[in-house]
């Protein structure tokens, strides 16, 4: 066990994978001598050299296209996209190629690429250093989408991703890269996909969150508790595959759901959670499902704090749900 920040845990996860498996290679912009703009790849270049820690030209198309080629050939590429906001030059490779390679070839060509990328707001990054567009990837059949919210999960889910047989989009909540510290198992720690983490149990209302919204929702649950409202909090961890049964079971217990994410609301990931409840837990719902999300505007700069979901907004939504019935 070591006490690490989230970004340190990712760094240890990468180092662990590279030490134990010579097929793991890291590639991206500024991942080498610079150690990554968020220092996630710090020290790797020194330990593993330029052949396994590859500073690429400024082309996300090239990064993901070549990562796919590496994977097809048999290596285990871990590609870094500097910010999720800059993934779109590679979007064709991700949705048309990486996601569909195994399927379209009848299983002949698996495509186990891991795409790591920092995402989310709260760092005064404005319109292009703050976005949360996980829904694009979740809607794309063939991709797994993972979001850790603790250092231990960050390492454990990353190691699972690297050794998974399928392509994984690994979204790192950069806002809590350094603000969250926790105990992280040493060695080859793995956290399975498709299993939500119950952060706290409760009986009156279910909070669903992931990434940097988990700490905010935890705070909200604590506030609610003082008001006599017992909130259950689930950290979804893998958005795809989703732990549907945990989501449904929680609402069957509490009868109320508050869904939290930073992304815009319209067609956001929260819509899928709400739809799931409307389909499979309708008769358990005592109150309208609430979504506490970013607004349907581009991500702002000056008014970032107004835009982002926070503890107060979550508490307010949970209160309203409890009052509704």
């Amino acid at each position, binding site marked *: 066990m070591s006490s690490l920040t989230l970004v340190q845990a990712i760094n240890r996860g990468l180092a662990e994978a590279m030490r134990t498996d010579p097929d793991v*290679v890291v590639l991206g912009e500024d991942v080498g001598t610079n150690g990554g703009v968020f220092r996630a790849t710090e020290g790797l270049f020194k330990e593993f050299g330029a*052949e*396994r820690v*590859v500073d*690429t*030209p400024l*082309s996300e*198309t*090239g990064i*993901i*296209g*070549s*990562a*796919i*080629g*590496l*994977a*097809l*050939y*048999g*290596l285990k*590429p871990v590609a870094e996209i500097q910010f999720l906001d800059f993934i779109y*030059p590679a979007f*064709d*490779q991700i949705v*048309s*190629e990486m996601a*569909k*390679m*195994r*399927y*379209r*070839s*009848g*299983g*002949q*060509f*698996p495509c186990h690429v891991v795409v790591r990328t920092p995402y989310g707001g709260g760092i005064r990054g404005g319109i292009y250093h703050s976005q949360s567009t996980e829904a694009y990837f979740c809607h794309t*059949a*063939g991709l*797994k989408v993972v979001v850790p919210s603790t250092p231990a999960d960050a390492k454990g889910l990353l190691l699972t991703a690297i050794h*998974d*047989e*399928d392509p994984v989009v690994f979204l790192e909540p950069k806002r809590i890269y350094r603000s969250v510290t926790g105990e992280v198992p040493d060695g080859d720690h793995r956290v399975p996909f*498709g299993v939500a983490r119950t952060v706290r149990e409760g009986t009156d209302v279910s909070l669903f969150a992931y990434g940097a919204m988990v700490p905010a929702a935890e705070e909200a649950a604590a506030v609610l508790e003082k008001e006599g409202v017992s909130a259950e909090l689930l950290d979804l961890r893998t958005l795809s*595959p*989703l732990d*549907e*049964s945990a989501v449904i079971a929680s609402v069957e217990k509490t009868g109320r759901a508050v869904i939290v994410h930073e992304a815009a609301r319209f067609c956001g990931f929260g819509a899928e959670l709400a739809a799931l409840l409307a389909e499979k837990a309708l008769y358990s719902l005592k109150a309208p499902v609430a979504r506490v999300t970013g607004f349907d505007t581009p991500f702002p700069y000056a008014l970032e704090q107004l835009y982002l979901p926070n503890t107060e907004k979550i508490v307010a939504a949970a209160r309203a749900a409890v009052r509704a019935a």
Partner: protein
Amino acid sequence: MAESSVTPARAPPESVELPVPQVENALRTMVLARVLDERAIALQRQGRIGFYAPHSGQEAALVGSALALRPPDWVFPAYRELSVALVRGVPLQAIVDQLWGNVNDLSKGRQMPNHFAFRQVHFVSASSPIGTQITQAVGAAMGMQRRKESAVTIAYFGDGATSSNDFHAGLNFAGVFRTPTVFFCQNNQWAISLPRARQTQSTTLAEKAEAYGFAGVVVDGNDLRAVYSAVSDARRKAVEGGGPTLIEAQVYRLGPHSTSDDPHRYRSDREVEEARRGDPVHRVEEELRSCGALDQAGIDRIWEEARSRVAQAVTAAESAGSPPSASLFEDVFATLTPRLREESEAAGTLPPEEGRSR
């Protein structure tokens, strides 16, 4: 993967000169491909297959380049490269099964005709989006560097694909990392209705390589021997650490872009007639005839044999059934997720096998 007498998976010993028996073998493949091309168009017209993109006019470029490859090499094709698969030893039947997307199709009927994948001969799954295979070929070549394998990757693409994002990214990465990659551009003069001259203002496509710090070569794509030696040279250079080469094989697309296309809307019959004079299949026939290796009867037999092989393969492909319904849900992931299992059951397909898909 078994077969085929005509088209060995092994290339002849590296040499710029293709020996006559190899040329005769090449002719057999070219004729087989040409016959299949013509038959497939007819099959599409009859509604028996859904689509087809012919490669007539490009046989020398395809077969010549494929002959220069070795078994460990990896092929990243577009959608006109079935003769490359033939040269690498893929049975004709496997190709025709793909045109039907039937139960025997190695890709399980997941794609339109022409979008082949043959893992065993390192023939990577083709896709429709133009150019995407180019960066992938570079990535696989980076893998060969890492594993110190003495092999190359070859990316096939058209003149239109030189405008794609992946062309730019792929050639740039290849230049920077000096990857063992052969970029094989079949400039067939058209990208659907857009003529080469309006695709880009550069004089040749080959010269675009210079923007990435390596050499480009123009070759007469109707000349089997010229193509073979250009690719052999590029391959040798690549495995010796000399980095990538861009080869522009100048050919002409004799047929329509695909069965959905009507080329009369944008090009003249005269242009096509002129191009027909350079027909690469006839050119090889001519060579073999004039050097005495084959007489007309021998050539006729090659065509006969091709026709009967194609007819047989078509009959077999057509009589095979569709892939089973449950297969719809396989291969999305390595193993079935709970949601896919649920959908599969809701769809009333046979309960899919537990665990790993085929």
